[in-house]
């Protein structure tokens, strides 16, 4: 029986695990920063949002909603809608982190992004006892956090210098396409996506991008109705 991996090794392991994902996030941080400035956020606020919200796709959506003049409450509801998937990660990790103090749980929850969750999946799936593996999640979460903050600051500084003719805001749309296409795994998801898209286009004249929330709700309902696992 070998001794459990010490905290420092777990932490460094987490940094290594997240490194490729963190590198991949650099262009998105840059693009976010550029779009946030173009949307009219002050540089200070644009940078602060990366630390306050710390969620890439939600931050891209924020830039779109602010550009459209969406009221604050709707922005908050839209961010919640798009970040709801993090509740799944939270549910998955809950038992494995149950022994930690509230402070530890809060820090790890703040750092719980798509990337950190993906990077630590393998470590948390290992059945061998590992009392310090929350340090692994801390390393992955903190590594991504630092890279994300640095790249969005760089994007904000670049923001004003990119001409409008480059249509860079379209990069936000393309990011969503790149994330959503691989989600197409079965017919129910396809129907959910098609329904949401149709409703969003049909309702595009609704003020303040309200169509997004209506369309997401319609898509989720359609998907549930067709779920191959049936309604329980």
């Amino acid at each position: 029986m070998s001794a459990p991996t010490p905290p420092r090794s777990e932490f460094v392991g987490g940094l290594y695990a997240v490194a490729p994902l963190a590198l991949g996030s650099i262009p998105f941080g840059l693009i976010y920063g550029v779009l946030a400035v173009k949307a009219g956020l002050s540089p200070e606020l644009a940078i602060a949002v990366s630390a306050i919200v710390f969620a890439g796709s939600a931050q891209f959506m924020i830039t779109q909603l602010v550009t459209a003049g969406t009221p604050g409450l709707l922005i908050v509801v839209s961010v919640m809608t798009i970040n709801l998937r993090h509740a799944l990660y939270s549910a998955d990790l809950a038992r494995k982190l149950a022994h930690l103090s509230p402070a530890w749980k809060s820090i790890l929850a703040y750092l719980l992004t798509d990337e950190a969750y993906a990077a630590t999946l393998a470590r948390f799936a290992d059945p061998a006892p590992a009392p310090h593996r929350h340090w692994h999640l801390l390393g992955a979460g903190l590594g991504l956090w630092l890279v994300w903050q640095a790249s969005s600051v760089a994007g904000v500084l670049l923001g004003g210098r990119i001409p409008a003719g480059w249509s860079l805001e379209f990069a936000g749309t393309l990011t969503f396409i790149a994330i959503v296409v691989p989600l197409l795994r079965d017919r129910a998801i396809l129907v959910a996506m098609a329904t949401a898209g149709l409703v969003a286009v049909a309702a595009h004249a609704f003020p303040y991008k309200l169509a997004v929330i209506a369309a997401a709700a319609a898509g989720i309902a359609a998907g549930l109705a067709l779920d191959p696992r049936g309604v329980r």
Partner: protein
Amino acid sequence: MSLWVVMLAAGVMTFVIRLSFIGTAGRFDASPWFARALRFVPAAALSALVWPDLVVIDGALALAQPRLVAGLVAAGVAWRSRNILLTIGCGMLSLWLMQWLQVFM
């Protein structure tokens, strides 16, 4: 409401979502119904964001336009490669090429 307050609220709610099950560890499990609904959330929400960007110009439906073509190219690349950066690169290049050649003008 100032945008700072809005962003703080969005951040707090994101944190609450992430803390949800971790913070109440062991006392609640995600109900199967809730987990099934969550599965559709990212697909539906992102699709709702993408389509109007591809087919609506200045509040009017417009199918013959470079963004729809560039978006479909990007979707094809995303399907084949599963690579986010390659998808963005191919989509932007198609858009710029069509704008430069003035394909839809």
